[in-house]
């Protein structure tokens, strides 16, 4: 990945260029392994190569210890996948985060997704101290400050010494949004805050309730946010009826309308039906004004991603 700033782009990443050119972008997720297993990352990357514009490399998701996002991201980059590194605010203070951003950039990583991070009580180390030196919005503002003002949080210029040239990390800045979270009436405003802080793109939590999502998009469009921020709609294909019911009953804030359950229940091959429904959903999302792409979270089902992307008419991925 070139180090010099491509003309007119903030970071010059593939994802940025695809979105800037107006293509409907496709991103997916790659969860690093829970051990020092470099090979596992290559295996997952293989499934996604060519099917996505970039892949999120999660950061100790659900507070379970995994290979770090930057390390796994670098390994994925070697496999020809453009990573979207994730940084949560749970585990690192501003010193570590800025250090990681510099490090990620030096390794050729260009997209960073800013997250608050699941509370440690959900993971395998509930007795750990959490950090939360900042929140996701402050993190977005920080990355923007580093990139555009070429300064650290403390105000120091990003240069190795007084006489050295400025060498700032040029990052394409991402964030996440949950259109269905409470307080509901604050959600579009919260996206507004992220836009004000400088976010370039956001990915939403997975959507099943398309009506509510369309309502959220309406509020987003009313505020003109879709023009300032590239919005990628999150989808997760349902593997089974059990999974559908689990999502409906056990995942806080997730609304799963009956139609998903009913259709799956009626289908003979539930997995195939789940894929089909996902493809239809993506096609519907493409038609919503302000939706710039799809974020496919095929949890432990990464091998089906190419098929879904192809089914939705999104292959081959554009070369920009």
């Amino acid at each position, binding site marked *: 990945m070139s180090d010099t700033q491509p003309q007119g782009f903030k970071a010059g990443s593939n994802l940025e260029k695809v979105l800037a050119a107006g293509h409907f972008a496709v991103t997916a997720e790659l969860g690093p392994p829970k051990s020092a297993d470099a090979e596992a990352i290559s295996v997952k990357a293989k499934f996604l190569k060519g099917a996505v514009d970039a892949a999120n490399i999660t950061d100790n998701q659900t507070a379970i210890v995994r290979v770090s996002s930057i390390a796994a991201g670098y390994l994925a980059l070697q496999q020809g996948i453009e990573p979207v590194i994730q940084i949560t*605010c*749970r585990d690192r203070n*501003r010193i570590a985060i800025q250090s990681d951003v510099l490090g990620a950039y030096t390794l050729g990583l260009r997209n960073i997704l800013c997250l*608050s*991070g*699941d*509370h440690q*009580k959900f993971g395998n180390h509930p007795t750990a101290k*959490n950090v*939360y*030196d*900042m*929140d*996701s*919005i*402050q993190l977005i*503002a*920080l990355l923007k400050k580093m990139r555009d003002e070429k300064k650290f*949080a403390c105000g120091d210029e990003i240069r190795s010494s007084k006489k050295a040239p400025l060498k700032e990390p040029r990052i394409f800045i991402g964030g*996440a949004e*949950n259109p269905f*979270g*409470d*307080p509901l009436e*604050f959600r579009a*405003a*919260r996206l*507004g*805050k992220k836009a*004000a*802080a400088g976010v370039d793109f956001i990915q939403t*939590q997975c959507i099943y309730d398309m009506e509510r999502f369309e309502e959220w998009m309406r509020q987003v469009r009313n505020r003109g946010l879709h023009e300032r921020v590239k919005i990628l709609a999150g989808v997760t294909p349902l593997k089974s009826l059990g999974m559908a019911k689990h999502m409906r009953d056990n995942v*806080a*804030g997730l609304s799963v309308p009956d139609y998903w359950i009913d259709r799956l229940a009626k289908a003979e091959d539930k997995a195939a039906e789940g894929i089909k429904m996902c493809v239809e959903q993506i096609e519907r999302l493409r038609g919503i004004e302000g939706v710039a792409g799809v974020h496919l979270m095929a949890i432990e089902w990464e091998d089906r991603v190419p098929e879904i992307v192809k089914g939705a008419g999104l292959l081959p991925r554009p070369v920009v």
Partner: protein
Amino acid sequence: MITAVRKPFDEIRDLVKGYDRLLILGCGTCVTVCMAGGEKEVGILASTLRLADQKDGRSREITEATIERQCDREFFDAVKEKMAAADAVLSMACGVGAQFCGEVFAGKAVLPALNTKFYGTTEGPGVWSARCSGCGTCVIADFGGICPVTRCSKSLLNGPCGGSSKGKCEVDPANIECGWQLIHDRMKLLGRLADLEAVQPLKDWSTGRDGGPGRIVKEDATL
């Protein structure tokens, strides 16, 4: 007030096992209000220990006393003799008083009977909850009088995370309200919702615990 809960009895019994003349010292302020270490609780603990000792066939002298506060030197004067007569003091004050007791009576074994929890308020009979973390830079005015540092599980300053559901925090929906739902509702009541759209900058944590053990000097009161 500073709230606390009494340590489990077994842990206390283990802490005091080596002592034959014990003074159980209560505190009449915060821990009386949250019913963890006041005169009543001193009585309960003393009786429990005596009954346990009786069962174990152990003869031990256990005296009881409660002073106004254990965080100010002058209140210890009232129990100077009792302290001298004991070979250990089981302090039922909060972590501050339990430590200060040991400073005032240097060389005396002082053991904590409580686990100190948070700066909180009495929500209702028997229920206390946290309101303040002592961050050293109070910003509740920006949030309608509600502290996001304390009442949000992640101390977020710019709005809720995705784990807010029906006014509850996903960390413990049965017991924890979403601080940001509270802030949102309050600001709406005050007609100040628009103020929540301002991006709050990074917090200076150095004015609180992160800056090191706190110390306040009020010049006009020193001599």
